[in-house]
């Protein structure tokens, strides 16, 4: 009998420590500064345990019943602690208040456990044995928990499930207690029913943990997530609020349906409308089909080649109703050839020639993407462009990332091209930049005619796009090269400055 009793003590102690560790880890994760978080949480928790121990003196009757109720409360508070905290962080402003409330509540309840247990046991054993055994197993449990937490629980289960698992352990100990101390209980049945209810609730929590994790993730985005998928290359998230659909790749905004027409018209038409003899167009990136939608407005275009890395992107934008409405079903056009490939090696092996190339890659947020903004890349691309053909490159914001923008311009120049930088305003992005480029000696003049159904661009407005106001004017820049990707460093610094 004592062995089983002491195992219960060990489990209770382990549970108590796990909740404390979970609160500390979670606070460090969400708030940063792990030293402060762990110190204050351990401090409050121990202090609350002290309060609990002191309060234990006011419990005088029905010790076992009270003990079992306390266990059940710990099971609920502790078991759901990390779920509650994740969701609180995601959806409210009161994270710290709830955090310390939960820590103190659990601390007080845990502080009640050991004094009550000792008093329950004091008539069964010698007092000195009670103290020695209870405290020994208490500390052993703590050791077990402290090892289990980092080695098994966090890597294998994560914080949400670990908490629930230990909630279940607490409730199971409570249920077990109703049998262990049945001679000290007058009516164990209602208690057992309560224990089973709490156990059921927690098992439900275990099953639902996935949704909690997802819900916490969704809070990154302002609007309701209507689609989220992890592909081999990126995390694709679509959000919607009323009539505004937004696409995020790796949590970087790609477009907002409310104003993407401004971006895509500005990307495609200043270059393409200026070349009425264009027949073949290349789109690199742009798996959303929105640039293709604009290209299809030209009857003279005979074929469009779209090269995108991620098959799931193009599939999604070909089949999803919301998305095909956005791109007008452009990805189903018989003129379009979709190629799923990494752009740089694809260009290297391809012999195809094009009259216009649209380079619509994600911004150079890392060195892998930065390779697609180098002199080596543009030189290779230029080999695929016909004599009077042109390239247009989406080039981040000349306002927020001025150095980055003019670095891209300089890179195109160093690749032996002439450049025609321009910009436009897209509300969801701010001022946005593009660069048209063609071979030295070729000419460019803004188009005198545009396709009919445009929502944003007009013939007379296009020349103005090439004017840069004082705060966006050229700055000295060095080309971005494979062996010296200064663009990624500029970009990182400039956008970080803006967001802080």
């Amino acid at each position: 009998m004592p062995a089983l009793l002491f195992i219960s003590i060990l489990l209770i102690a382990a549970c108590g420590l796990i909740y404390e560790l979970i609160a500390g880890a979670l606070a460090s994760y969400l708030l940063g500064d792990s030293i402060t978080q762990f110190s204050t949480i351990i401090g409050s928790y121990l202090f609350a345990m002290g309060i609990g121990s002191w309060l234990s003196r006011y419990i005088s009757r029905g010790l076992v019943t009270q003990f079992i109720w306390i266990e059940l409360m710990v099971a609920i508070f502790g078991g759901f602690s990390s779920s509650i905290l994740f969701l609180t962080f995601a959806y409210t402003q009161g994270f710290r208040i709830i955090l310390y409330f939960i820590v103190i509540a659990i601390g007080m309840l845990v502080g009640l456990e050991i004094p009550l247990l000792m008093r329950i046991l004091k008539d069964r054993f010698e007092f000195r044995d009670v103290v020695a055994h209870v405290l020994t197993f208490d500390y052993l449990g703590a050791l077990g928990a402290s090892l289990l937490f980092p080695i098994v629980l966090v890597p294998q289960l994560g914080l949400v499930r670990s908490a629930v698992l230990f909630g279940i352990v607490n409730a199971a100990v409570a249920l077990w207690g109703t049998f262990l101390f049945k001679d000290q209980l007058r009516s164990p049945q209602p208690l057992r029913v309560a224990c089973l209810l709490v156990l059921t609730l927690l098992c439900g929590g275990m099953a639902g943990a996935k949704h909690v994790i997802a819900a916490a993730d969704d809070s990154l985005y302002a609007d309701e997530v209507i689609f989220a998928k992890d592909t081999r290359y990126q995390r694709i998230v679509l959000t919607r609020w009323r009539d505004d659909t937004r696409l995020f790749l790796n949590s970087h905004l790609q477009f907002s349906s409310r104003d993407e027409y401004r971006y895509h018209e500005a990307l495609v038409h200043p270059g393409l409308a200026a070349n009425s003899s264009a027949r073949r167009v290349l789109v690199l990136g742009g798996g959303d089909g929105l640039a293709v939608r604009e290209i299809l407005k030209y009857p003279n275009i005979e074929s469009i080649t779209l090269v995108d890395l991620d098959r799931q992107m193009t599939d999604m934008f070909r089949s999803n109703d919301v998305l095909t409405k956005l791109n007008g079903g452009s990805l189903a056009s018989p003129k379009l050839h979709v190629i799923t490939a990494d752009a740089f090696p694809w260009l290297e092996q391809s012999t195809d020639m094009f009259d216009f190339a649209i380079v619509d890659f994600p911004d150079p947020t890392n060195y892998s993407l930065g390779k697609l903004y180098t002199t080596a890349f543009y030189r290779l691309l230029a080999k695929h462009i016909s004599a009077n053909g042109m390239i247009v490159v989406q080039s981040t914001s000349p306002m927020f990332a001025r150095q980055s923008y003019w670095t891209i311009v300089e890179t195109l120049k160093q690749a032996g091209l002439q450049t025609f930088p321009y910009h436009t305003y897209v509300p969801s992005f701010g001022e946005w930049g593009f660069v048209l480029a063609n071979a030295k000696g070729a000419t460019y003049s803004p188009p005198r005619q545009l396709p009919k159904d445009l929502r944003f661009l007009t013939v007379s407005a296009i020349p103005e796009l090439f004017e840069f106001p004082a705060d966006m004017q050229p700055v000295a820049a060095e080309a971005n090269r494979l062996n010296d990707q200064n663009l990624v460093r500029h970009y990182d610094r400039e956008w970080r400055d803006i967001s802080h």
Partner: protein
Amino acid sequence: MARHQPLAIFAMPKRSKPTQLSRREFLAATSAALIGLGMKTDKPIAGEFVNESFQLGHMLRDRTPFPAPTKKEKFAIVIVGGGMAGLSAAWQLERRSFRDFVLLEMDKQPGGNSRWGENDITAYPWAAHYVPVPNAKATLVRELFEEFGALKNGKWEERYLCFTPQERLFIHGRWQDGIEPAVGLTDRDREQFKRFDDLMQRFRASNNFTIPTQLGMDITQKPDIAALDRVSIAEWLQQQKLDSPYLRWYVDYACRDDYGAPASATSAWAGAHYYASREHEEKGPLTWPEGNGWIARRLIKKLDSYIRRNALVHRITKDKNRYRILAGDTEFTADSVIFAAPTFLAPYLIEGMPPALTKDLVYSPWLTANLTLDRLPREIGGTETAWDNVIYNSPSLGYIVANHQSIRQHEDRSVWTYYWALAERSPLESRRFLLEKDWNYWKEAILTDLARIHPDIRDCVSRLDIMRMGHAMIRPSVGFMFSDSRRALTRPHAGLERLFFANSDLSGISIFEEAQYRGVTAAQQALAIISGSQESTAPTA
């Protein structure tokens, strides 16, 4: 599609997490940080020792009898050894339109320290893996790179220059850019790095430190520079009152990396050479997936008809004016021999070789491993894998990513080349240790070292091949650079006329440029003698 970070003012989500890590990444990182170790798994890792050559070396050392030759062939020049020195000698002969020669390579694949391998992911190096961008004075190297298209109209091919990010160092639990320690330094440390840089700058200005080394050594050395060879670089740092632990690590790392020797066993002259010999006109170095195998591969292709593979030379004798070279089942006769194999083998092969000539040669033992990664490990702190990844205070030299020069945006798999100069004990002890321990021992040692920076490395690696090299490279020990015995190797010897040594061993520094210089120089010397004495085979150019 395009654009920018969600934190930018116009697209600011209502709530944003303070970190860009995803939840899963965070949990992986914290668990790793909290426990400091990865979960051991039972994922099997295949692999073996590869390119073992010491058995052949031991046969030579022990004078194992070889079968008598059954064939005879005659050439004006025989080149012994198909490493970079031998290949460069052949390259030079061929460029001078001289064709009456043969190159004997003991292995099935020439290349020596520039050997490479290949699997379905990428080609990868087995040893030498880069060449610093040569400056204008390095005319031979530039000539070769022009021939192979790496240098066009004075511009280096961008794809052969090491891509960004080049190097990173794991120090105090995080990655930093570059290998020179920058994290955790006090003002005193910084001042010492500055002083060290100034000293190296002064050495550079002396023009005594060049690549090839011979050019600078021929210029009169100021007393304080010549004196450098008489102390180790570790002692020299002490003399200069440079005792910052970061600086000492940095210098020790350079010695282990370039010479396979600790700072305490490296001549201060050689240690200074590492820093003082290079001025870069372009951000480099030059590198390729197969490392210097890229150069070897092109040389081998060009010179293929002159190369005999699996031709282990086991005896070189001289009677009257001809050399007899026994290799495999063939007896070659030659007017001149270019001995480009590792120089320590010479006493075992060459009859009449004065033993004093090689007594000062010390070689560093090395181990390299190529790890096939079926997935890439998670990166701590969201940094990107660099080409060269170094661990502060590790006995290893870190790893090189073989497919770093890929133009792909996305790579799922990789091959890492892991380098370990066994510099902690004496070369003899280390060599014995290297051969004594089995593959499993070294595999565990390598994975344990890597698990410090990549806790999940064991889940990623499917294959780990190891190459053990007892005599991987010449070591510029204290006094060696200016020793008479080193100098003697570069000159003709009584009784061994028309035999020219051509290994980078002669330079005391085992790098591509030295091997090329020694190979080309030996070829020129051999040509000069032959054209002087033998009209029939005189070169046409």
